[in-house]
């Protein structure tokens, strides 16, 4: 009846199991689990060892790659007091400003804020920086030309060193001017993004750069401080 019938004679074990035999023999097997054999001790030991190694490897893998079961949580989710929040906000603003400064300002004003004598005015300790926040924001918004006095020295004598306006967002201006106003020993107030937006609107009709002397006149109160 079965297709193996022709080969059955050649084989050592020529019977097939009936279903009853299959069930009975295997049930029997599972009842006598502990057949005493020579290798009884070795196999489970190897097994336990391999299993142990595997659990070890797996735990390492898990702890390295699960991100502690978090979904990229923002740091700010930690509960902070009002002052801590304020400090954190300012820190973030300043560190953002520092990056912007390094990328877009430091080539002239230098990373140490000292500028280059005769060419680029210093920012560290500059009365232009510590004046009204609108001064620095306006300068960045529209650029600056004409002769100016900074820390008692004259700059801007040549047209080549005029400061040009570059495309930059209000938030970036707020961040970078806050950084400049608080770095290298400067300690002026922060510049707010809203204020920059307001200044941008006000000066939106201006085609040209600010002229140093005009700007100084506009904010003469804060310069005299």
């Amino acid at each position, binding site marked *: 009846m*079965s*297709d193996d019938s022709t080969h059955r004679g050649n*084989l050592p*074990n020529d019977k097939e*199991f009936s279903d*009853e035999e299959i069930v009975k023999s295997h049930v029997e097997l*599972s009842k006598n689990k502990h057949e005493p054999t020579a290798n009884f001790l070795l196999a489970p030991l190897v097994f336990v060892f391999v299993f142990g190694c595997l659990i070890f490897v797996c735990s390492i*893998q898990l702890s390295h790659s699960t*991100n502690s079961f978090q979904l990229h949580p923002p740091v700010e989710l930690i509960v902070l007091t009002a002052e801590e929040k304020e400090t954190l906000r300012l820190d973030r603003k300043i560190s953002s400003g520092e990056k912007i400064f390094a990328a877009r300002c430091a080539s002239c004003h230098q990373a140490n804020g000292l500028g280059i004598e005769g060419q680029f005015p210093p920012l560290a300790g500059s009365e232009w920086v510590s004046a009204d926040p609108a001064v620095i924001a306006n300068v960045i918004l529209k650029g600056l030309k004409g002769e100016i006095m900074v820390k008692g020295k004259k700059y801007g004598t040549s047209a080549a060193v005029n400061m040009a306006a570059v495309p930059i967002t209000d938030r970036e201006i707020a961040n970078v001017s806050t950084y400049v106003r608080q770095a290298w020993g400067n300690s002026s107030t922060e510049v707010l993004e809203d204020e920059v937006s307001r200044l941008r609107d006000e000066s939106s009709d201006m085609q040209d750069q600010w002229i140093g002397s005009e700007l100084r006149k506009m904010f003469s109160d804060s310069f005299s401080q």
Partner: protein
Amino acid sequence: MPADSPDKVIDRSAKLVFSFFLSSAGLWLLMAALLAYLAAAKLTDPFFLSSYEFLTYGKIKVAQANAFVYGWGGNSIFAVSLWILARLSQAEVRGSVFLVFAGVIWNLAITFGLLGIMDGHMSGHEMLEMPTEVWPAMLISYLIITFLALVIHRSRQVRETIAPQWFILAALLWFPALFLIAWNGLEINPARGTLQTVLSMWYGQSLVWLWLTPVALGAAYYLIPAILGRTIDKYYLAIFGFWCIAALAPWSVVHHLEGGPVPMWIPAVGTVMSIAMVFPIAVASTNFHATAFMDIGKVWHSLPLRFVIFGTLSYTISSYIGVVFSLPAVAKITQFTIINEFHFNQRVYGFFSMIIFGAVYFALPRITGREIPKAAKSFHFWTSTLGVLMLLLAYLIGGLTHGVLAGQPSLPWSSSVIHSIQPYFLITKFAFIILAFSQFVFVVNVWRIIFPNPFVYFSAENKEASV
């Protein structure tokens, strides 16, 4: 084989159901083979039949997977599970009419599902692409069949159960649970964002691991001792293997999400559990191969067993490869490549289908009393083997090429990366042609056995039983 009468009675009770499910499975197998060929042909020549919308690559590729898994897989699972459960329980198959009725609904549901896919109502969820309208019909018909399978199991003669019964029962019970979870999470109470993907990926991959795989393993646990006439070697490990699969497989499948927009713990857990899967794989491999190699000559001479052992070897190898590919360092290269096709085809062709073929060749003569010609069986075995090996090697090597080239950002995508894997698509096309021939021979022979004279099948039942 001792042809004692209780077995004959059981076989006779299973005859209608087995014949029905097997012949529909055969139909789906041919359908899937045709679709597989079309899909492969479209990858070698994109203009092939390109003006027909319902035959566009995206649709037939999906239709092929669904026809294969639910059509061929589902029907053959019903046929083989019911018969093996009945034989091991020494109980007759009851409620044949309900079973056939449920089977008709199942097949209609899949037919409409595939038509829906072709007509542009694809849902986009992995292995649940069929339109939601057919899901209730699938679930209800499935539950009827499972209920009747449990009835058979409940009326078993020996109270103790053995490995094949665990695997088959678990598979039968897991499917509706998976289906309901996916249905709830995707349609009834839909999840938002990538949670959908986690769910559909979990469902799609678990379907292979918790539905197709256990049935094939159960069939192997039954066929190997039955044909060899020996008990399974180290049988005490089988229970450990079973619970390992039950506990680990549903965790391991999500490693495919590595690097994606989901919380990192999901793929990480998946990877870890995939590594742990070496234990159940080792257990099944030891059980099967230690038993088979005691009597390798007999394995070689018995065609059903040859199919089964091919399947189990393929299971072992592919599962280990799967473990390696789940490691993040390797997944970096292999993820999203045609290695996915390698995994899918290895599972459904190289493992599941081969074991089912073996089970059919074992069961069919016993149930119908007629033999498929030896030449046809042999042709089927060798062409399947050749086709499967060609297919898998092409996808494996092609997939590695795909991954390595894709990982070099300077190489342009289509003219370099995809161009270099096109030869492999050509090989898979030929492999699918070979497999289509092979399966055609199989199905035609199965049909000829089941319907020796198609017009007088039901009236001639008594005559056949006397062979």
